């Protein structure tokens, strides 16, 4: 009896990091011409599994077969030779080299005296045409857009004759339109007999592109379903392991303008990171800033924390001009939730209680004669930990041991009490507040922001996650290359419009909207 073996077979893979079991006895098969979605929360073990597959990690137990042949463990070279190609979430490209350089690397013996660049280039162009992926082989990677870089990553694998392509959260950095074109590419690859493993935590796109879904939770494979026979609700329940109710926004009265930016321009690294920004944020509303990362969002957040000075224009809070001085912003009751909690939000090697009071350490509440009032600080921290349900072993523990969700709750608690205990902040600047959190923690953060707005805070929510913006923002504006389009009510946006604006191709990015009747 002859039966073609599956393109890929993982048998009983187990991987432990210390006491953490990242992959627990996982077995999977992948047929040729199939798109298998690997679905799971952050930390469910998706990335670990594909890292084992690609030879970055060695599994503690279990083995891998590619087209019936065993694959040696821990050897990326063997994985490449077996036809496995990987497209990392954070692209594995050298920015200072050309596309051709990046693609060619490792395809020629190192001791060869000449690079056969002309032949390689012809092959690259031919491969690109066959799969409908256009790129300029001589462009420096640094000059390419995110979507183009991803194409280079895919081409890199195809150039080497990959038969199995692994895509790790491929849409995380793309605009909706770029995602569409990626899905079209994937369909073409599958039509030519390639197999694809598509890693994601977004239900809609998983349902959209895959033939089969494997759901991982806490390192275990909890279910495999044919995509046709499942739905969003079932997958969500499988992924999280419990029911989650997502908060919804409700109509609230809008108050006075709290934050008012007029013609703000700021240079960063020689380019205008903010270029002529006009924006009002009123008390009681959540204004969402959409955009692909790197279009000035960070500069905007920094401007509103007092760590970046505007070169032109006016920045006013409650009708008072604001200086570029972080302490003043804090003193006026501006709460901030920074983009990267590990790098900017907290100091990992300091205990929880010191992080909890760090923004108000200089106020009389927590220091006297230059000496920290430890008792008051610790009491405050205990209260905060309880109110915001931060799970930890103790307030003296190093903050870095907290999980992402708990760390974010700590930051949230600190931010919301910036104006004093129980006083609503004037303005909340939240930059990617739910990045990397699981659904439960996301719901909690959203709940807090909605409550704060209902209590009269002006909230500026900067996010790359459009679902998040549509769920809780009252108005949305799109940022592109330092420009901010005119905000529109959330109901007035469609996904297609916002995608075009994020790519900078719509009139909607400019404040000039032709006079309508």
């Amino acid at each position, binding site marked *: 009896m002859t039966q073609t073996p599956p393109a890929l077979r993982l048998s009983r893979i187990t991987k432990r990091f210390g006491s953490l079991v990242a992959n627990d006895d996982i077995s999977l098969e992948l047929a040729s011409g199939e798109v298998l979605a690997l679905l799971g929360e952050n930390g469910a073990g998706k990335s670990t599994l594909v*890292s084992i597959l*690609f030879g*970055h990690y060695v599994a503690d137990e279990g083995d891998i077969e590619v087209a019936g042949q065993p694959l040696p463990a821990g050897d990326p070279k063997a994985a*490449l030779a077996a036809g496995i190609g990987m497209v990392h979430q954070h692209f594995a490209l050298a*920015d*200072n080299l050309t596309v051709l350089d*990046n693609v060619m690397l490792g395809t020629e013996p*190192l001791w060869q005296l*000449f*690079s056969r660049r002309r032949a390689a280039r012809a092959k690259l162009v031919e491969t690109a045409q066959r799969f409908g992926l256009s790129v300029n082989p001589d462009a420096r990677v640094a000059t390419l857009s995110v979507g183009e870089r991803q194409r280079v990553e895919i081409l890199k694998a195809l150039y080497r004759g990959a038969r199995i392509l692994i895509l790790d959260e491929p849409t995380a950095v793309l605009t909706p339109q770029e995602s569409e074109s990626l899905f079209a590419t994937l369909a073409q690859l599958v039509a030519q007999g390639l197999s694809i493993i598509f890693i994601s935590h977004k239900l809609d796109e998983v349902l959209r592109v895959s033939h089969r879904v494997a759901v991982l939770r806490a390192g275990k494979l909890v279910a495999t379903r044919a995509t046709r026979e499942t739905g969003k609700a079932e997958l969500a329940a499988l992924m999280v392991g419990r029911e989650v109710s997502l908060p919804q926004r409700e109509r609230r009265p809008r108050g006075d303008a709290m934050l008012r930016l007029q013609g703000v321009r700021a240079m960063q690294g020689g380019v205008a990171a903010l270029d002529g920004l006009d924006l009002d944020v009123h008390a009681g509303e959540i204004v969402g800033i959409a955009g692909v990362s790197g279009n000035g969002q960070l500069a905007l957040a920094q401007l509103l924390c007092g760590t970046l000075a505007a070169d032109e224009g006016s920045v006013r809070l409650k009708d008072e001009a604001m200086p570029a001085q972080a302490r003043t912003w804090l003193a006026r009751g501006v709460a901030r939730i920074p983009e990267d909690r590990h790098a900017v939000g907290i100091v990992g090697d300091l205990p929880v209680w010191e992080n909890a009071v760090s923004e108000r350490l200089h106020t009389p509440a927590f220091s006297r004669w230059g000496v920290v009032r430890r008792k008051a600080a610790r009491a405050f921290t205990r209260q905060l930990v309880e109110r915001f349900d931060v799970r930890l072993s103790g307030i003296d523990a190093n903050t870095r041991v907290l999980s992402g969700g708990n760390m974010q709750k700590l930051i949230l608690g600190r931010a919301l009490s910036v104006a004093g205990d129980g006083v609503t902040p004037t303005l909340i600047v939240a930059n990617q507040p739910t990045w990397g959190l699981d659904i439960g923690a996301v719901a909690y953060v959203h709940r807090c922001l909605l409550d704060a707005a209902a209590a009269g805070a002006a909230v500026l929510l900067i996010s790359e996650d459009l679902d998040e913006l549509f769920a809780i923002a009252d108005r949305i504006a799109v940022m592109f290359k330092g420009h901010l389009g005119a905000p529109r009510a959330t109901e007035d946006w469609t996904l297609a419009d916002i995608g075009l604006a994020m790519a900078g191709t719509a009139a909607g990015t400019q404040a000039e909207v032709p006079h309508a009747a």
Partner: protein
Amino acid sequence: MMELLATLADMLGSSAFWIATLRVATPLILGTLGVLICERAGVLNLGIEGIMVAGAFTGWLAVYQGADLWTGVLVAMATGAACGLLHAVLTVWLTVSQHVAGLGLTMFATSLSYFAYRVSFPKVTTPPTIEPFAPLQALDAVPWIGPVLASQTALTLLAIALVPLVGWIIQRTPAGLALRMVGENPAAAEGQGLNVVAVRTAAIVAGSAQMGLAGAFLTLSAFNAFFFNMINGRGWICVALVVFASWRPGKALLGALLFAAFDAAQLRLQQAGGGALPYQLYLMLPYLLSILALIVMARRAAYPQALMKPYRKGER
């Protein structure tokens, strides 16, 4: 003022000035290429100062013991390569701080060379000498630059020839591409099936061999003996010149020649100026001008992105 300009014009027209410039530039060219190779692979090698001392000493010692000059050159390069291997073990295999390992290597190699010299020649007061490389008289026939070339030795020509060679290897061969890739994004290189540790080790060993050669030029060509403090900061100049050159071999040659020209010029200005100014001011001149040139040239330099970042497999 007119006098000074006249002096300058005289100087630029004299072959003696250009002869001196090329001679001063040679160890800088070799050392800068060595540093450049290491840094393009992502590893800072501050061991250069010590490696140059060790190369100068072992190359000279081999010749003093009866080996011929080219064997001395090979010995110096092997010494450099060995020091480079030590640096690679520390920085690439054990991933310790590249600054600390490099400075440690400089102190170690310098002290060891001085110690070995003292042990070998406990009683001498004047340094023992060898017969160094002879100038290439035959090149006098070359039109225009003949007189300048004829006063140089084979090592200078070798250094100049190495510039396009290194440039070609880095830009045009698979090995050069691998070298640039591990210096830009080692994780990506690993993902493409390259052995990052092996490529970086090879780069450091090759670069350090050139640093050893740079040192040997001083004892086998520029002078005929080994003495203490003869490297005198030339290694550090090379580290700065690589930044000046934006990690490109051609610009490295230019930078080395520029610095050497300043150095040759200051000697002549010192003589022309009489005792009007303290001579230390003239000595400062090339360094001052180098710092200025560095400020102008290096502001837009694109660093190899993974420079000074140790690569540990399986970490993000």
